[in-house]
């Protein structure tokens, strides 16, 4: 089976494409090959799950895709734009406007209330205060926390915190939402609620890539990429979908 679900770089259909991406960490005298040549294309509005054993390079891949980290070699283009050539400021703009990142540990700012946490990407995008309010409220409403805007993150449950993180990820209307084990710190019921939310976003047209260890979580996606030792072991439609 073909590793790339599409041939070439169909300009309008392709959200991102990686070619021979290598990421190597040097720690003292040790060299860790986190990614050892990953090539893949993801189309707009795809719903992709990345799986694999611990240490297989899932988070590293997500960080490269999310422009939090740069590959050691190989090319990465996001919506036709080569990321390797971008400077720190342009990368910040990409993270701000094209990527919505959801972390396993939520990564909310503790001192800021929910509204402010969700507002941050818009602040860094330079959106005027008057427009921010409406967009922030809409995003918070979408994750079902409209009555909690004034609360601080530590006054919320884990599931609620992750909802806030999702609201923050989608408030800037990014091209791609990346979620690295979004349910990893949640019980299965709360995890299901988060997945329902992601399903809704996908149905609304969002491209979603998520990392998980759980098959029942991966089952929400339409395509599963399995990593092992820094390379793609398999890349296939989910069983439920492909039949």
């Amino acid at each position, binding site marked *: 089976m073909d590793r790339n679900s599409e041939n070439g770089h169909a300009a309008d259909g392709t959200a991102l494409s990686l070619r021979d991406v290598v990421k190597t960490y040097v720690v003292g005298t040790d060299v860790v090959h986190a990614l050892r040549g990953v090539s893949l294309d993801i189309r707009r509005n795809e719903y992709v799950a990345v799986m694999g054993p611990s240490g297989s390079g899932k988070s590293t891949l997500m960080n490269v895709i999310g422009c939090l980290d740069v590959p050691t070699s190989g090319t990465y283009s996001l919506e036709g734009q080569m990321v390797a050539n971008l400077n720190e400021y342009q990368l910040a703009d990409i993270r701000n406007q094209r990527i919505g990142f959801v972390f396993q540990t939520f*990564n909310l700012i503790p001192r800021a209330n929910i509204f402010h946490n969700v507002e941050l990407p818009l602040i860094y995008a330079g959106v005027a205060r008057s427009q921010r309010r409406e967009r922030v409220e809409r995003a918070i409403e979408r994750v079902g926390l409209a009555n909690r805007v004034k609360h601080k993150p530590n006054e919320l449950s884990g599931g609620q915190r992750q909802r806030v993180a999702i609201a923050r990820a989608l408030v800037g209307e990014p091209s791609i939402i990346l979620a690295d084990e979004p349910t990893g710190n949640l019980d299965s019921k709360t995890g299901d609620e988060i997945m329902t939310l992601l399903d809704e976003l996908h149905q609304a047209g969002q491209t979603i890539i998520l990392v998980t260890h759980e098959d029942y979580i991966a089952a929400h996606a339409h395509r599963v990429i399995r990593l092992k030792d820094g390379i793609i072991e398999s890349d296939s439609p989910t069983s439920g979908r492909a039949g």
Partner: protein
Amino acid sequence: MAGKRWKIDLEESLRIAMSALRANKARGFLTTLGIVIGIVAVILTMTAANGLQSTFRQSFSSVGSDVIYVSRFPWVMRNDFFLYRNRPRLDLRSANALERRLRGSAIVNPTLGGRQDLKFRSETMEGISVVGTTEKQTIVASAQPAVGRFITDFDVTYKKNVCVIGTEVRDALFGTANPLNQQMKVGRFTFRVIGVMEKQGGSFLGGPNFDRQVFIPISTFVKAFGGERSQDVNLAVKAPSQEALADVEFAVIGEMRKIRQLRPSEPDNFSINKLDTLVGTFNNVMGVVLLVGLLITSVSLFVGGVGVMNVMFVSVTERTREIGIRKAIGAKPHSIMFQFLFEAAAIGLVGGLAGIAIASVLTAVINALVMPASVSVGILVIAVVVSIAVGIVAGFVPAWKGARLNPIDALRYE
């Protein structure tokens, strides 16, 4: 558009800085101690310098800059008194001789001074400076009578028992009553008050206080208090203009040497004093005040700066994860930089304001006890600017460190 974006960024930076400060009140306040002391030092130094300067100007405004004084001793002596101890006294005879020789080129006014007790009815003052002088006093020195008249040629010739008093003497003896034509006691003798001098503004660092003094005719002084056999005559010589002062000084030295019949090999056995001598001394005092102030200021501001830098390093380290989060959602290096610079500036400002408060209290105390002093708006502005600047300079390296963090490393920081 770009300007707008900056403003939004700055707002956010300010907001974070304030909340960080609120969260770490105690730590921030302790660090500011160096800045507080530095700002107190800078304000007090400048206030003291201003105060000294204006007190000096006021106190010696009557010592004209076109006047030289001939006296037995120099005004400013250090450890060299033995050099002058054996000098002959300046007497009225040589004063008159000098006056005659300089007639037409300069005005010479002799004075004799001593301390006497004053008394008016039940009010008394002890050890007040009594100056025997002539009608030329008001030509040679700038101070004029504010009320009544000054001593005249006639008063001097006929040894009248009349006196002209300073404002502090008037206040102490007469209160708000009109002193003119009242009979008061100077020592054992009765004098009629004929005038009150205008206010000359207190004493300069224990120097003469011209408001606390009584003028009487020099002839009366000799008759009543013994005169030149026990006291030195001082001679004020006024040049026709400031430019002529050097020539007059030269002439005075020459004439005095003739009067004293000094051989060319002998040194002067009298002293020439002028405002310059005092200005020189004043500048020395001022220089020391400024130097000490500057030293204390810079040392404490440096210590304060190091403290702020420390706190900022801690603050950046503590918030490494937060920096990672902010960068992950699109914060640019300068946004992070601003955030920490604002915080550092605010810490500096807090220290500065505390310093201003303390310095204001101290200034009020100085004003009440030592000399007139007030904190000017200019000094306040400087204090605020300096304290903010120290914060920003000290915060720069930590802020830079935070701004340069790699997002993924910052996010992974535990």
